[in-house]
């Protein structure tokens, strides 16, 4: 009787079935990464010293129960909000020669709008019945205004957009030395247009937690 020295080959026909089973398991138990959003820093829960700010440096954005938008006392469409906010932030109304004159502002330099971007404050107010979607849309437009201005300055100074720089900063492939440089540049641009958004506390109407 001949001796069979060869090891019989394992049947790989069911490999596909096994792999399919695993694939379906992973499809069911996992989700695609969808986490992105608008980052905000809440004020700490303590008594905030009163600060006195000129009315011209405050940009009032109000949302009512019916999700209508009131900006600086006039009804506005959401589509115009970014433009209005940009005009307010970029105004640079303080007279030339003053200590904090804004030499990079390209706005109208109107005397009834913000002095310079450092003093410009956006005051966002909403009621309890305002819908979250509208609120996020408004927040998004405000951030878009800041990003637009920061992009402009960043392109002028470094030849790269602010948003692109931020993306590169958070990219894992960026080396630490590059990150160091990027961090400095981002800080510099943020210093030109600091993001100052104040929100009212909807629970105590007409009594914002940060006094203006």
């Amino acid at each position, binding site marked *: 009787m001949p001796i069979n020295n060869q090891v019989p080959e394992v049947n790989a026909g069911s490999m596909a079935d096994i*792999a399919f089973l695993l694939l379906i398991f*992973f499809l069911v138990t996992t989700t695609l990464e969808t986490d992105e959003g608008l980052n905000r820093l809440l004020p700490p829960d303590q008594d905030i010293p009163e600060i006195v700010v000129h009315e011209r440096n405050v940009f009032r954005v109000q949302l009512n129960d019916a999700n209508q938008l009131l900006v600086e006392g006039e009804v506005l469409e*959401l589509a115009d909000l970014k433009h209005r906010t940009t005009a307010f932030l970029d105004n640079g109304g303080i007279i030339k020669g003053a200590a904090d004159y804004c030499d990079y502002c390209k706005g109208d330099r109107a005397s009834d709008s913000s002095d310079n971007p450092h003093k410009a404050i956006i005051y966002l107010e909403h009621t309890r019945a305002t819908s979250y*979607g509208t609120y*996020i849309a408004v927040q*998004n437009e405000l951030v878009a205004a800041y990003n637009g201005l920061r992009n402009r300055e960043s392109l002028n100074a470094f030849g790269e957009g602010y948003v692109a720089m931020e993306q590169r900063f958070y990219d894992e492939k960026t080396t630490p030395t590059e990150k160091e440089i990027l961090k400095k540049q981002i800080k510099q641009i943020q210093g030109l247009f600091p993001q100052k958004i104040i929100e009212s506390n*909807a*629970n105590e109407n007409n009594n914002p937690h940060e006094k203006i």
Partner: protein
Amino acid sequence: MAKFAKKKDGDLPAVSTASLPDIVFMLLFFFMTVTTMKDSSIMVENNLPTANQTKKLEKKDRIIYIFAGKPTREYQNVYGTETRIQLNDKFANVGDVGSYILEERAKKPQELQNVLTTALKVDSDANMGLISDIKLELRKVNALKVNYTTSEGDAFNNLN
């Protein structure tokens, strides 16, 4: 002349399935790398608002999630149709948010406890009163970094 026998026509050779496992494995590895494990099932409606000025939440281990929205249909006869907060796998009241955050914070390693972000996954139909209440609770426990989680898209889609 019979050596060149005419091939029978109409008899297609079978397609080789030998590479099928490879293809499936490729798909499998793709999904294993791109997706992450679901850690809680969502019991509320969660149509996130859209925005386009967003930043990515890179590190999953530094995030505490809070869900809010109307209970889904299967929970509606028990919990009603009012907007509710969901923490982990339970419906909760606004008052529970603070202790939940402290609890979750204590679970994280020491070095991460100061850099945690609270991701608010809120349905776009929710009203701001609830969000204000949540924010007030977050401030009480000093969880100040907040991310309003959105999905990619034009912000004007949120207005109906």
